[in-house]
């Protein structure tokens, strides 16, 4: 990343106390600048998080909604009972009285969902960026401007549209299959109920993935690759062409150039994009909630949609708060791990 590292000018050591006073004074100006934004963020961003942690330790239900921090008369009467880590234990041991709830399955599915999506986003994104970057390509500008359409469209509208495309009678997918059958004489089924079928299309290790998974995967791949492609394009254009020329002179094949020049050089730009993409996909609420709705039998539910249902359907506010914190901790752990891994490999490359 192109961040300018500021190195402090060498200073004469004026003694500890003077230095501390100076730092405090400098801090004061900084804090004055940050004050309005700081207060706003404290109230809007930080406070809900702290409240979330507090709620997660209590048995917070509908009747506790009358509890009001600003009104001391409600404190004794409606305060939720403290239950320590009970919410967390119940969530992790799958002891919530909810239909189709199984934490291990949710987590396994969520991870599978994220890994498969990010893989396709990155692979397709880079492949298409490479194709668009080819010398003497006809129609480059037309392709470039049309290919970002999925990114430019609101994910929410896209999700609802795909939901309707998968409609078993009136949706475009089944009708497209009918057209293909008519044109090529094939005989695909044309009335598949995409989110109801429980028979997994691929058995063995992948038999925990119902047909609905492949449907939401397709929709989210459609939605996600243009972002990666744009990032990759930007990085590709920064590679000096002399490198390829030199490699050609040395007799390198196209495949070797790809793995020895292109991939290592676009890597610094791709890594942060992949990290962000991973967090976005892990929490891709719109696609799951609106397209498969977790069907069949909650097997395509991800953690964040389950957290929503805990509030909206079960009204278990305390449990939902604990659930969100678990999601948060999982992502935090993942980010730290990835950060460490990429740093380690970066050092190896340099």
């Amino acid at each position: 990343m192109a961040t300018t590292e500021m190195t402090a000018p060498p200073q004469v050591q004026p003694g500890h106390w003077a230095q501390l006073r100076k730092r405090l004074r400098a801090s004061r100006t900084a804090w004055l600048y940050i004050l309005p934004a700081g207060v706003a963020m404290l109230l809007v961003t930080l406070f809900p998080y702290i409240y979330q942690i507090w709620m997660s330790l209590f048995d917070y239900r509908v009747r506790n909604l009358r509890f009001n921090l600003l009104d001391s008369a409600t404190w004794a009467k409606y305060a939720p009972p403290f239950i320590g880590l009970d919410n967390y234990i119940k969530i992790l041991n799958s002891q919530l009285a909810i239909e189709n709830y199984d934490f291990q399955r949710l987590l396994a599915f969520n991870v599978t969902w994220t890994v498969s999506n990010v893989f396709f986003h990155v692979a397709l994104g880079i492949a298409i960026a490479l194709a668009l970057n080819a010398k003497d390509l006809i129609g480059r500008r037309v392709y470039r401007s049309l290919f970002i359409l999925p990114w430019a469209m609101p994910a929410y509208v896209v999700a609802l549209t795909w939901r309707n495309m998968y409609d078993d009678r009136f949706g475009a997918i089944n009708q497209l299959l009918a057209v293909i059958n008519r044109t090529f004489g094939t005989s695909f089924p044309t009335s598949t109920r995409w989110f109801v079928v429980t028979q997994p299309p691929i058995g063995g290790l992948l038999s925990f993935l119902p047909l609905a998974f492949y449907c939401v995967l397709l929709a989210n791949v459609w939605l996600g690759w243009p972002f990666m492609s744009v990032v990759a394009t930007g990085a590709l254009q920064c590679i000096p062409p002399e490198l390829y020329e030199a490699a050609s002179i040395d007799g390198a094949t196209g495949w070797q150039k790809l793995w020895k020049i292109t991939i290592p050089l676009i890597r610094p730009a791709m890594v942060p994009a992949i990290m962000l993409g991973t967090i976005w996909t892990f929490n891709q609420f719109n696609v799951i909630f609106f397209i498969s709705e977790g069907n069949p039998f909650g097997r395509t539910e991800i953690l964040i949609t389950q957290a929503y249902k805990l509030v909206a359907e079960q009204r278990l506010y305390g449990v939902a708060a604990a659930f969100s914190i678990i999601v948060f901790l999982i992502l935090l752990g993942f980010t730290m791990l990835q950060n460490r891994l990429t740093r380690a490999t970066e050092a190896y490359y340099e």
Partner: protein
Amino acid sequence: MSKRTKAILRQLALQIFLLSVLVTVLFPILWVLSLALDPRDIDKPLKLTLIPPGASLKAFQKILFGPFKLLCTNPADESTCMRFADLLKNSLIVALGTSLLAVITGTSAGYAFSRFRFIGRQVGMLGFIVLIMLPTTGLLAPLYVLLSQIKVGGETLRTQLPGLVLAYSSGFLPFAVWTLKGYFDTIPRELEEAALIDGASTFQTFTKVVLPLSVPALAVTVLNSFMTGWTEFILAWSFLEKPTRFTLAMALRAMQGQFATPWSEFAAMSVVMTVPVMILFFALQRYLVSGLTLGGVKG
């Protein structure tokens, strides 16, 4: 094989690949457009048609000027139903409010984190990066409870549009601060120092030097925060109670019934909701990648 045939074959392979990608990209978009333009205002599309026979704008007319019969204060009285203009007003309040709050707060905080070395800076920065992990939906429970506790004008803030703006900002601000801080980091400090030597105040250097150079990052922040407010459904659906405060996104979802979807109207509404976002997107497109300076963690 001569060099020329090789080049032609290569071009052919590329074109086949890119055309098949293009077809996949355009298929859902064309499907929606075709439904929206269908003159029969169909409830049940049974065939794929690219351009429906006798395309018309009837569905658009219906959603732009007709009442939304699913969103009425009194279902028996059509004049109490929401109309497009009402929904648009609510959506604009929420979307513009969210972007205004995000840009103002995000810019000043991002600048402070980028330029000042103060006590608590490291912790604060780490905090923001960590807060990006959870989307607004993950804050549903505390936001619901907290906003229900604040009463403004006899009603809880939760059921009002400003409450929604606050809720969206809580999820979006960390991302805004992070993006903007990362971008400010890339602006050479010498530019500000030069302005300071020329007699500008700190505030002037910020508004006259730093901000004009930060247009890409500001553009990204505006676009993303506007998009959040414009298309968010879950919090709006959970918080708002009165149909008079409903947004376009909520109306679109309401159209998708379990058993009866008014397909042409749904499609027309999707198009109407997408177009402004797309215009904004393409207007700001050249900033999108440069403005998204990811990973500005160090420094």
